[in-house]
């Protein structure tokens, strides 16, 4: 497969600098019936997240007398993109992403306070342009806080990697598909613990270190937007307007 040119005049395809994020918009509390919810628009990604629970655990035999079960369902809408991602329903990819999102939040959600129950995180991708799992994590964090589910810390992340021989932050679709390496990573805000890390492709140990550093910096910017979204949700009366 021929690799397209990923840089033009020292800038990336969409005109961004190497360490620049795509425009991000986060709105908290967009769903009426969910306990908590959030909508994230991250470049061309559109992700909506709803939190239900703590509620009765189904199936009952799966319930734990010590803690709430955290469950996550990530799905992509059939119209989310033009490619094979667009098949509806759970598939191999979405099952994996559901699992890693659940595990990212497993460490911060204080599920021990709600024994015998379950907490559901539903994330639906309405439109995809590379980096949906990170957008999903950003949405889920805001939605969990909006639901009043106790958390030790907020999580924010970003995808970093290597495209066209350069280390870049927040890979877009072309950079993700044709680049050398893509590494989505998420941190807790206060302690900067890595709660989520995946990698496609290859990076040298030095590159990996540099990537983690720049990801930490970029995820601070994401956190600022997440916290602003939560603050704003108390200013608007009659619920947040969702303008997709």
């Amino acid at each position, binding site marked *: 497969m021929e690799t397209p040119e990923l840089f033009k005049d020292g800038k990336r395809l969409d005109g961004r600098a190497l360490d620049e994020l795509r425009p991000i918009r986060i709105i908290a509390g967009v769903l009426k019936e969910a*306990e*908590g919810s959030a909508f994230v628009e991250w470049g061309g990604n559109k992700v909506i997240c709803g939190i239900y*629970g*703590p*509620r*009765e*655990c189904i199936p009952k035999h799966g319930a734990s*007398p010590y803690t709430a079960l955290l469950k996550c369902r990530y799905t992509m809408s059939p119209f989310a993109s033009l490619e094979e991602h667009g098949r509806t329903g759970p598939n191999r990819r979405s099952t994996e992403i559901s699992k890693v999102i659940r595990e990212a939040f497993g460490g911060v959600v*204080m599920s021990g*306070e*709600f*024994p*015998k*129950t379950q907490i559901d995180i539903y994330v639906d991708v309405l439109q995809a342009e590379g980096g949906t799992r990170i957008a999903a994590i950003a949405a889920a964090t805001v939605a969990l*806080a*909006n*639901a*009043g*589910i*106790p*958390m*030790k*810390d*907020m999580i924010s992340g970003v995808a970093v990697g290597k495209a066209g021989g350069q280390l870049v932050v927040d890979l877009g679709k072309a950079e993700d598909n044709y680049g050398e390496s893509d590494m989505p990573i998420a941190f*807790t*805000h*206060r302690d900067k613990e890595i709660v989520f890390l995946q990698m496609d492709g290859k990076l040298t140990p030095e590159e990996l270190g540099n990537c983690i550093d720049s990801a930490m910096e970029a995820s601070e910017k994401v956190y600022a937007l997440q*916290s602003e979204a*939560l*603050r704003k949700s*108390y200013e608007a*009366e*009659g619920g947040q307007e969702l303008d997709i």
Partner: protein
Amino acid sequence: MERMVLPGEEVWKREVQASGTYVRGGITYASVPGMMRDEKFIPLEMAYRPKVGDNVVGVVVDERHAGYMVDLNLPYNGVIPTRKVRIHLELGGMVYGKITFVDEVGNVDIGEVDKLPAGKLLSVPASKVPRIIGKKSSMLNQIREMSGCPVFVGNNGYVWIGPRGNMHLVAKTLRLIIERAHTSGLTDQVAKYLDENR
């Protein structure tokens, strides 16, 4: 002074046991979004956890030998044990009571049960209940007075509105309180609203 606190942010530099917070390494952090007002932490959103002594409003959903099962807006139904409470209830009837016992997995027993006549049942976020009641029930009494409705509020987030007076006004006022729960001077705002809309 007011400031908003998000999960993971520091609340106090010392160990304090307060709802919506946790302690690590001698420092108290918030676990839910909240507001700092006069060095007090007020949780703005919080999933409800039953406590002994909470007043609750519920709906009878089942009758068993051991007692009545009551829907309390919780993951699991509460129980009015026949052994302790001698009262006859109808399925679908509404009750007002006090939580007398909570076990380690959150099963709830209810005592001091009173029957409520048929009325309207509303569900509100449990974290907003303190504002709906107000200091020494000031807010609640104001709503009762202006609307002419009997109103009972449970800590579990169920609100019963009796079949008298302006029930619609109560529902609209509750919505207003929920939306503005984080603002100060709420009792006055609500007084004005009640006055304009009665």
